[in-house]
């Protein structure tokens, strides 16, 4: 499990990259990825290209990020979702809370 994050040049957007299994084991790393940065981004992107698996704790972690990013006002995009990941997100109807691409 490796989670990294990269702010955009203007500091407005933070992209979080997920590698491997996205489950409870990634909890601390995922939080660090958006809490331990020196920027205050307006938008967040979670890049799931490298995510092989996603479980309900990962959905919980996404909700924590949403909360951190302002709850109802949060702007979060989930990108590069594989069909499996997309299916899990859609069963939980997370498209109501996140932009999924």
């Amino acid at each position, binding site marked *: 499990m490796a989670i990294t994050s990269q702010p955009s040049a203007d500091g407005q957007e933070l992209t979080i990259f997920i590698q491997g299994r996205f489950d*409870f084991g990634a909890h601390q790393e995922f939080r660090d990825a958006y809490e331990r940065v020196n920027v205050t981004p307006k938008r967040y992107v979670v890049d799931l290209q490298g995510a092989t698996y996603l479980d*309900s*704790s990962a*959905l*919980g*972690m996404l*909700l*924590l990020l*949403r*909360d951190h990013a302002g709850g109802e006002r949060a702007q979060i995009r989930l990108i590069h979702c594989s069909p499996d990941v997309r299916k899990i997100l859609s*069963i*939980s*109807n*997370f498209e*109501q*809370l996140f932009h999924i691409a």
Partner: protein
Amino acid sequence: MPSPLCILIAEDSPADRMLLATIVGRQGYRVLTAGNGLEAIMIFARERPHMVLMDALMPLMDGFEAARRIKQMAGEELVPIIFLTSLTESEALAQCLDAGGDDFLAKPYNRVILDAKIKAMDRLRRLQATVLEQRDLIARHNEHLLNEQRVAKAVFDKVAHSGCLDAPNIRYLQSPYALFNGDLMLAAFKPSGGMHVLLGDFTGHGLPAAIGAMPLAEVFYGMTAKGYSLAEILREMNAKLKRILPVGVFCCAVMLNLSFQRRVVEVWNGGLPDGYLRRLGSGERIPLRSRHLPLGILDSSCFDDRYEIYPMETGDRIFLLSDGVLETCNLGGECFGEERLLGVFAANCQPDLLFGEIQQALSAFRGEAQDDVSLIEVSLMEQGQLPHSPLIFSDSGQDFPLDWSVGFEFRAETLKHFNPLPYLLQLLLEVQELRLRGSVLYTVLAELYSNALEHGVMGLDSSLKRDAQGFAEYYRERRARLANLCDGYVRFHLDLRPEGAGGRLSIRVEDSGPGFDVQRMLERHASTEHLSGRGLKLVRQLADRCSWAPDGRSVCVEFSWPARHNPPDCQLAQE
């Protein structure tokens, strides 16, 4: 300040013994001495030294035997034994280690090496002590945790299983430790005799997953018993979980409202895999899709309580499953998956065996136990085959007056959002004599209310409901008209009077609709078996008297009861 290291020296030569005692004593250690093996084990038993320097060859009992006995006495604690020996053959040295020795020191003694060995052995001894201490601590914690879990599970079982999972129309499969997987299964009879069923799956594992189950179960049972509707219960559960759970913890859930009389099921699915409604006759399989976010995520203002309605016939079955079913893995790490599940459905010939076949397919697939599976089958039975459930109510112990009447008028804005039935029922159940007929009362109130609202106020035509398609159409139309309702009313008039030593309740329900031809309606219902019209027939069967105003705009039902017979224990108390 820890006590200084205490070292026992067992050596038969007095000169060597003195020499060693002096060297060791000068290092600041406490010294005990013994002249042979027997004396050594006696001193060990009495003084419990931390370490032993042991001569191999001694009279009475040699060092090998003494070492064995001392190791035995020491048990799990490490008491290092360093053999003092002039033996040099490897076989003899090996014998020292076999007897439990940890090291040896060759004569003549070198002060520096002796001290280094004592220090090394002391480190080893402390390490062992720490390991044992931590092992015991972990064991204690673990026992504590297991005990807490046992207690939590016992309490939870009382709450969660107070329902009717054992009803003859339900079959289920659930790990005994499901609570700590965050899985939850609830079922309860409604006052009307129908049934609410909930399958829930909290995020995560262990205590955090279990913690939300209790309030959820309380809301489910409490509100179901009081006659609240599916949507109202879901709303309350969502609000409660949202309020008490931390962000990121939520509950995927499917909830069913099964009505045996009206032969319909209402389904709300938020975040669980597709459930299935399987028709007995055609074998058709209708997926019950997740259309909502799980419970505990959205604010009440955004929560969506819209559900789907399907007509059901006797023998139709509903299957609900947790994602543990689809994620059951085999030894190769492959998931069972939806396709295999649907394969089991497709291969099934006898509907009655399907539940068992799914179970078999799962255990054959996973090989060995890896039990994180919740699966429930609910079928529609004839009402008569189900046990009659008593209503739960809180008793103030006081007699409620028997001579009163009260009227309510619910107008459009209220009809849109509010379900008056639980309030009316609670009021009537204050009257002790009515409690035994609580579910009958509820059923009658519910039928009269929905007739007044749907056909009277909103003018819906029940003949639409003659087939499954019309049925769906009917409920779509109902939703649309209700949302746009801007005038109209439903009135309830409850009148309670003593009658001899007993009493009588009359309920009059009136609506703002145009009324209908009472005579024709009664004739039509007498002649045919419709998807519609079951409601009125039921009311006429259940109430003691039932009559319509000639214009069809109001209906009056009556319940009466004879003089009260006090139960024997009450009589005793009064004497």
